């Protein structure tokens, strides 16, 4: 049995007329196909949480990103798709400035988190990263106990109060859907967990500092279908509280979990739109070819 057919798809919601007015006065997406079933009506009108403007990035002499413009709306899921090497991870890492760690990197343009420009001079990168959780392709729990893994972000912020930590750990583990499985073994090493559990632990670790944005780089690529389903379920839950950017290679996953999709090709955003739109009626030929599996 193919488990992918069994996945819980987000319930389609039909845009109701007149609801737009009740929401903040933000321009709905242009060219919104009113007749299409949408994942969430609020997504269309949410204020932007992250705005990328004319972002160019070079690794040494080689340019990896070209004039990227992208908006991620609050409490929505944006998925980044595209063939391997097109710069999805690079863009994701630029969002929380993890690219600073790469030596030869040079970046132009701006990324705004709320009202703050991340690349303005004098920005406290460490403060900034606290506002953005990141989940990596390969689960990477610290060789510490489950508890210490989740509490890590708070600890480095100087939180010492045991009760606060315990509370945060519990909330985050519940948020990541791992609480029931590990609540009796919080003191055990995180390396004893299964791959899927480890990945959810990493998500819990990212959630513990209550970030505004959650960046996920192919979080399910090393997981089996059942674990993948759990994480996808989780993403759907999490978007109530967080804004999520997810890189994925699975078209089905993008379709299932995201409200918006951006298609990358050779360091450029070819098309960005509502997920339903991209998957049913892409504007660009290339997008269509990629989605239908003709290349990539």
């Amino acid at each position: 049995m193919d488990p992918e057919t069994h996945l819980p798809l987000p319930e389609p919601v039909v845009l109701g007329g007149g609801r737009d007015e009740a929401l903040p006065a933000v321009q709905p997406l242009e060219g919104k196909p009113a007749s299409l079933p949408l994942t969430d009506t609020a997504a269309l009108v949410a204020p932007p949480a992250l705005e990328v403007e004319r972002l160019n990035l070079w690794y040494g002499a080689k340019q990896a990103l070209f004039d990227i413009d992208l908006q991620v709306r609050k409490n929505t899921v944006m998925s980044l798709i595209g063939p391997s090497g097109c710069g999805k991870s690079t863009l994701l890492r630029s969002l929380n400035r993890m690219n600073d760690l790469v030596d030869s990197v040079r970046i132009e343009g701006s990324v705004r988190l709320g009202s703050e420009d991340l690349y303005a001079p004098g920005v406290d990168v460490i403060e900034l990263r606290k506002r953005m959780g990141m989940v990596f392709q390969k689960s990477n729990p610290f060789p510490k106990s489950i508890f210490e893994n989740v509490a890590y972000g708070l600890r480095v912020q100087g939180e010492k109060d045991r009760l606060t930590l315990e509370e945060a750990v519990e909330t985050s583990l519940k948020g990541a859907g791992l609480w029931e499985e590990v609540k009796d073994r919080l003191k055990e090493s995180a390396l004893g967990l299964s791959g899927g559990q480890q990945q959810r632990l990493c998500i819990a670790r990212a959630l513990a500092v209550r970030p505004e944005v959650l960046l996920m780089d192919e979080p399910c690529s090393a997981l089996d279908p059942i674990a993948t389903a759990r994480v996808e379920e989780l993403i759907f839950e999490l978007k109530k509280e967080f804004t999520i950017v997810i890189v994925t290679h699975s078209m089905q996953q993008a379709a299932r979990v995201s409200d918006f999709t951006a298609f990358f090709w050779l360091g450029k955003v070819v098309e960005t739109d509502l997920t339903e739109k991209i998957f049913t009626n892409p504007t660009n030929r290339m997008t269509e070819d990629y989605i239908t599996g003709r290349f990539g």
Partner: protein
Amino acid sequence: MSSTATRNLAKRVDRFMAALITGGGLLIILAVLGILFFIAKEALPLFFPARTQTLAIVNLEPGKGLWADDSAKTVMIPDPAKGVRVHLAQDGRLLDTLTSGPTLPWKLSTSPDSRGHLAVVGADGRLHAGELKWAKPPGAQDPSQWTPEVEWTSGVSLPVAPSELLDVRSLEAGGLMGGKVLRVLARNPTGLIWGEAPAEGTEPLQWKALPAPADALALLSPDGQHAYIGTRDARVQDWALAGEASLSTEQTFTEPVTALGFALGGSSLLVGGEKGSIWAYQQVRDEQDTKALQPFHRFLSLDGPVRGFQHGLRDKRFLAWGPTGAGILHLTSERQLMRITGDRIEGAALSARGDHILLQDGNRVRPFILDAPHPEISWKTLWGRVHYEGYKEADHTWQSTGGGDDFEPKLSLLPLLFGTLKGTFYALLFAVPIAILGALYTSQFATPGLKSRIKPTIEIMAALPSVVLGFLAGLVMAPLFEQAAVHVLVFPLAAVLLGLAILPIWSKFPASWRRIWGEGREALWMIPLLLGALALTYLLAPSIEKAFMGGNYRTWLQEAWGVRYDQRNSLVVGFAMGFAVIPIIFTISEDALSSVPRSLTSASLACGASPWQTAWRVVLPTGSPGIFSAVMVGVGRAIGETMIVLMATGNTPILDWGPFNGMRTLSANIAVEIPEAPHHGTLYRILFLAALLLFILTFSLNTIAELVRQHLRKKYESY
């Protein structure tokens, strides 16, 4: 076709190389095991029990004691009726009878000691001192080629013949023969008497009374100036014989005293009792500088009363015998080397080398051979406190050679092991923080360009021969340190203070500027910082010395702390040996820290941790087993290090943790003593034991380190 041939060739080459590499590895393991085996083979005989051998009983008519030559092929028996009889030990055949000297038949005689010395009162009432000996042509092994001799003094006339001759000593020579004046201790029916007269017999001897119990045992000290008395009522007394005899000190014994004797050297008095107890006493001076007899060794008791003692001439072993048996004991180690039970034993002799024992009962002589090459070594003498002759109390002492024939080597390994650990401790104290923090910086903060230069530079340091380091430490650094000890101690403080002072200023610089000039290049900023600290030290140190140490740190140390400053001390060693171990600890730690998966550091940074927090909370704990293994390897290196400690310390085997004095390590000790150690002697084997110890120490440390490293490798395979 050709591809099959290539494949076959490749397969064959593969197999050949595999065999070659396996063979090479096995050879190395074999070589190491071989070395271990050889070292152990040389060291372990120290702990072998003594071997004994019983020879066939010989029938010999008894006389006054008996004396065996070095090889115990012959026995001489002083016979009051016939003179000195010379027998072949093997079958008791009479070879000769020496009748020179005192007129026969002798009235009185002492038994010969292991030197063959005895005293005889002849029929004419004259006292002669004599020495039994053999004239052996070089290389002659067979007694038939030897000539027996007795050398007699010309005889002192005694106005009154005593009833028993107890002891005779020459006043100058510290023995019996060769002196000008003889002192005589004897007994007559009224009690003990003593006197002295010229050995050449020009004047008669005048008896003086010694007011001790009449039935007491008595013995003269080797210099003849004292008489030791053991009484039936269990007292041991020391009488000074000058003008009049006077009691200088007294000790009680456990039981009636039945035998007195000396161990080699004559400073340990052996006392045997009626129930078989055996103790050794020595003269000590107490706090009031008055003399006292100190019981300082106790031995396994005989089954019955002790009748006599005789010591060998090679070491501190002695024979204690009584009617029911005999034992060969070692004074210092208190070991019982041999035990013989017997019945009605009347006399006993120990050969000069202490390897042949003759027991006499009635007409029979029972010969034994004792093979105990290292009687002074026991587990206790190597590691425990040992009470040596001439020392006030038991202690851990290493002193392998000394002046004088009767010098006793003192071979406690503890001060050497202590020295090894002390040197290692000071080296690591200096090296571990620098190496590990350096590794942390290089692996986590330095720019790749800087890193690619730092690492090889430090690794080149490892190639520096330790002789050079030792030479520099001993001849350049030690005198420098001595001149500027305060500077040396102030400098690190100054550096830290200056660093702390500069940091807040540094943080005021614009971030972009800091980013370009600071991050990853902090190491370069250390150079002006250290130079500044040096200047600060030169400004501050003299005034610190003046203000807190009265202007001279050496007298201050001496007066305020009672510490003497040695030029070649632990700080110098720690510094020099630190240099030797820093590269190895640095390299292994750096590898361990660099191999902490990047995904972990990324995860930490993404959680909002600063690079420093990441290094401290994630990289360091994750790499800690590797660092542990690095330190272990460093410890192994420091333990085995020889040249540096040899040249940079005074090599004094002391038990003192102080930083201002030196040490002697196991390895340096081997280097120092090897020229002094005769092949297969005790010292030689002890040095091998030290080597074995070093081998085991370094081997187990390296094994632990390797196990930890392998465990680590397995643990992070999943990343």
